[in-house]
């Protein structure tokens, strides 16, 4: 029955369209992380192998380069779907504001073009270029990853804090300034946070693969290097990420107070607000939560008596769904803190003894850290995106007014769920095979 209902028309399109968008983005972003961070890690490993004449490191780099090829292919096809969906699902957004915030996607297009070209060059050129030229060919990928991520994230930051245009009395966009729109108040914090998240996700995930191998008794140089390099990258970045988390939370407090109130599940505007962890929000109140007194005011205003706005300040129709946002936010921060603990453990032992902690518990922790980092990143995005509701463009355009009224749109969700279920299964199968068997080729390597 539900299916028939949502095939009926405009209002019914909203829910499936949101879910379709969320699924497609949530899928794509995992692969995008690899597109941003993996080239740097791979070429670093290749360079070390070359410098030290260490065949094991070179073999590791080649294996990773192949995995990068597969992940890149998955990222590229899922990204293509996204660029269709932006228009198909949200014509009210693209048709009205495309001229304001569509622009970074054009720059992003070039960045991805460059990245796609050099992924081809890098993989295909493994045996065709001199080591030097080969390593240099990775640098455009690294640069394109940065530029591409900046551009897409700036588009999202614009949705959170729209700038760079004026509206006339009828609500038409006048005086669109696309460059200005790219540099709104959220852009830098969101970009840096996302960029670091990409390195954490990539670093912890790769390290976790080798941690599993070591737990199964394979403790050779190959596995140790495969664990050490990405784990070091991720461990260095984690504390920085938490600092940036504080920055981005302040940006949200200044610009999107309703989102912050939902993140903290705070109904009343309070001076000296406490930080609530967990709990269920019902009837304008948070139940069963653990509260740390004054902590929220301290974090947001760096003053224990600072005033934090609550949801009561906003009309009921402009409040985001509190439980999802609060839970997602807690999840991200909780995992971030746990990963900080892991990084500190690793860092301390390495600093004192120049070796990995001996206990199997350390390897077990690394083994789950990859999935944990992915969950933290997805939770962060859910915080951002659901916390913006009911707005697609904060304060200006409601999501409900942006969705396409085309009949039958809901079937898209069904199709996308089906395709992604199959695709996820095969991606895992292929990556596992790639991990076991050295002769397996990546898609961009031209020959058998």
């Amino acid at each position, binding site marked *: 029955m539900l299916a028939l209902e949502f095939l009926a028309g405009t209002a019914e399109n909203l829910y499936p369209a949101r879910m379709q968008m969320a699924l497609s983005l949530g899928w794509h972003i995992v692969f995008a992380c690899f597109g941003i961070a993996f080239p740097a890690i791979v070429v670093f490993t290749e360079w070390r192998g070359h410098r030290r004449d260490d065949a094991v490191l070179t073999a590791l780099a080649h294996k990773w380069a192949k995995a990068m090829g597969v992940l890149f292919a998955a990222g590229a096809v899922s990204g293509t779907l996204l660029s269709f969906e932006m228009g198909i699902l949200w014509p009210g957004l693209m048709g009205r504001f495309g001229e304001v915030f569509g622009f970074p996607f*054009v720059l992003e297009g070039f960045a991805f073009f460059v990245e796609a070209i050099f992924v081809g060059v890098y993989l295909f050129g493994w045996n065709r270029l001199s080591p030097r030229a080969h390593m240099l060919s990775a640098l455009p990928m690294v640069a394109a990853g940065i530029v591409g991520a900046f551009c897409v994230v700036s588009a999202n930051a614009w949705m959170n804090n729209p700038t760079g245009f004026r509206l006339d009395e009828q609500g038409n966009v006048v005086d669109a300034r696309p460059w200005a729109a790219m540099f709104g108040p959220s852009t830098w914090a969101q970009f840096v946070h996302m960029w670091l998240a990409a390195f954490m996700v990539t670093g912890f995930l790769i390290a976790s693969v080798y941690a599993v191998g070591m737990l199964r008794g394979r403790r050779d140089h190959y596995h140790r290097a495969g664990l050490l390099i990405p784990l070091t990258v991720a461990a260095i970045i984690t504390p920085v990420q938490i600092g940036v988390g504080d920055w981005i939370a302040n940006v949200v407090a200044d610009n999107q107070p309703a989102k912050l109130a939902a993140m903290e599940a705070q109904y009343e505007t309070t001076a000296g607000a406490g930080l609530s962890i967990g709990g269920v929000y019902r009837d304008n109140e948070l139940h069963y939560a653990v509260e740390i007194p004054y902590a929220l005011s301290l974090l947001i205003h760096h003053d224990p008596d600072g005033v934090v706005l609550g949801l009561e300040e906003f009309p009921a129709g402009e409040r985001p769904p509190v439980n999802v946002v609060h839970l997602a936010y807690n999840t991200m921060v909780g995992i971030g803190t746990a990963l900080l603990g892991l990084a500190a453990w690793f860092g301390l032992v390495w600093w004192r003894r120049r070796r990995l902690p001996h206990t199997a518990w350390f390897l077990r922790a690394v083994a789950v850290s990859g999935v944990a980092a992915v969950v933290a990143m997805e939770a962060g995005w859910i915080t951002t995106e659901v916390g913006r509701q009911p707005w697609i463009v904060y304060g200006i355009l409601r999501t409900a007014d942006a969705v396409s009224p085309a009949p039958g749109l809901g079937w898209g969700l069904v199709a996308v769920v089906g395709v992604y279920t199959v695709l996820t299964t095969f991606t895992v199968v*292929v990556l596992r095979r790639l991990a076991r068997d050295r002769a397996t080729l990546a898609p961009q390597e031209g020959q058998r």
Partner: protein
Amino acid sequence: MTLAEVVLGAAFTGLVAYALFGGADFGGGVWDLLAGGTERGRAVRDRIERSIGPVWEANHVWLIFVFVVLWTGFSRAFAAAVTTLYIPLTLAALGMIARGAAFAYRKSVGTPGMQRFFGAAFALSSLLTPFFLGAVVGGVASGRVPPGIAEGDVVRSWVNPTSLLGGTLAVLVCAYLAAVFLCGDARRDGEHDLAEAFRLRALLTAAVTGAVGLAGIAVLRADAPVLFDGLTGRGLPVVLLSVAAGLAALGLLLVRRYTVARIASALAVTAILAGWAVGQYPYVLLPELTVDEAATGRTTLVALLTALSAGMLVLLPALVYLYVLFQRPADHRDRPGACH
């Protein structure tokens, strides 16, 4: 030329590039589909795989490029077109996912059953995706997309004679381009049997494409009169150029001049698309929304043009480098860890 026309021209150039590079890429999949059983088709399939392996991702970014330029520079017309035509577009997008993933993964899976499954997915989606894209072009070209959001008929906008023609031509053109490109690739690598086989395919598809094109004139006359008038009036020189280039390509194939045949074929395909553009000028959405009316504000267009020019300076050398490198055989320098 107005600023808006220049920007639309850039998007159109991207579309031509997509038709040529992406088209040849899809066409490779079509020939893969028609290559026959696992054993018999192996040589052809290997050839195709080697030819598109390193470039298939880059080939498809052109479409993204067209999209983003349109949604930034012609936001409302873009929103109108993609919402009315969302069904074939969604199907094309899913086809691209299936195709890309299947192509990327089939080399990496072990069992023959899985390989055959991926192979079939790759080949089938190579056929369907260009068909849907051609149907989308047919819907726009026959004036079935009104300028409002989802105002057109979401079914009849792409299930109609012009769309059927567009889809069929798209598939044929892809197959033709792929065959011509593969002739050259096969000969370069000394696979003369394969080169001959693709030459035959190219000649055959050229004949079929020409016949469908001729029949298409009658279809357009009945179903898309505005476009028909444009094509037979202002667009006539371009149409004739396309015919001439197509005939030249045929001749060059007959005498096995594959490199020049590639150029002539590319010219013929470009001219077909240009014919469509000239035919419907000055309208973006027939029968009333013109290029200048559809364009967004001046600041945005200037920013777009700046970005496009700067971007091309980065992009073109990189693309040339990729295609040149890719024509070079492997020298198997012995690197530790190399797997060959």
